[in-house]
């Protein structure tokens, strides 16, 4: 049963990824839609990471000493300064660990 579920899940994740790449799909993207879609990366990625930081156990984080909030703020500054994925993730995770488990 689990095997069947996994196979069906595979169909779903693959279809969501492939569908709009299929050439004979009758869709023509106008310049307006293309321009709109150029905002999809910042929009989707932001909508993934912000709730991880700000929503915990179905509540908005309000404490300014919350490890997620502190470490994310540090990561944002490191990202602005270095623009490096390594530095941002490294410093962020280190800050998170320190605030959560040491302080």
């Amino acid at each position, binding site marked *: 049963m689990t095997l*069947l579920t*996994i196979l069906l*899940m595979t169909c779903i*994740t693959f279809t969501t990824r492939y569908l709009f790449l299929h050439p004979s799909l009758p869709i023509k993207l106008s310049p307006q839609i293309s321009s*709109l879609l150029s905002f999809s*990366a910042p929009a989707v990625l932001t909508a993934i*990471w912000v709730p991880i930081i700000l929503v915990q156990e179905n509540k908005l984080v309000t404490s300014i000493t919350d490890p997620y909030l502190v470490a994310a703020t540090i990561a944002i500054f490191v990202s602005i300064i270095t*623009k490096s994925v390594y530095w941002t993730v490294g410093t962020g995770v280190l800050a998170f660990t320190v605030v959560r488990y040491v302080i």
Partner: protein
Amino acid sequence: MMVRVTIKGFVDMLPLNLAVIPWGILCGSLAIQRDFSVLEALLMPLLVFAGAAQLVATELIASNASLATVLFTVFIISSRHFLYGLALRDKLKKLPLPKRLSIAFVLTDELFALSAGKKSLRGKLRITYGLAAGISFYLGWLIWNIIGIVAGSYLPDLTSLGLDFAIAATFIALVIPTITTVPVLVTVIVASILSVVFKLWHWQLDLVAAAIVAMVCGYLCLQVQTKFAVIDKRQGSIS
């Protein structure tokens, strides 16, 4: 040249591979801890190849949720990929079928983030580069999952350790440097606010809804900006 591009794609993806180590180990070990067989636990990263969808489905299957619930939830979580496909459609639709299928298979948040630039995935070299990056991430994800599967029963329950912070940090690292224009800034601000509000409202399509509204706001902002630029130009030429 092809070899160099392939290696570069592989290497450029490494920081993102490293960032999902805890998350991958969590996915693998959770499957074992929730009584999946080794084969089933292996097929998850091998075939389904998704982070959040894998994790949520594992919990749902373990709690005996109905097949329809599992599949619907996976569909909702995966629906953001429709946007990626649309955004990349014009660049990828003319590729030969095997290449198109391969890129689609490895089209994750991470690969999309890496290839969201105007030039990326245009031309043979950049396609090879993107494919190499995608495969690099696939192999990384598979290895971290396998480590989780092997270590599975020896590890404590990792779900409460805050491992998701590494994911957030990765996306911060991918998004923040791309905020170079006002429309993108508007997109990011709107997406931040709405994703949190929708999440608190328990909307199932919270992520996609927030992203679409944010995209529209960014687009409108760009239209206004372009309009003013035109007016400025005209006034400039009059005076």
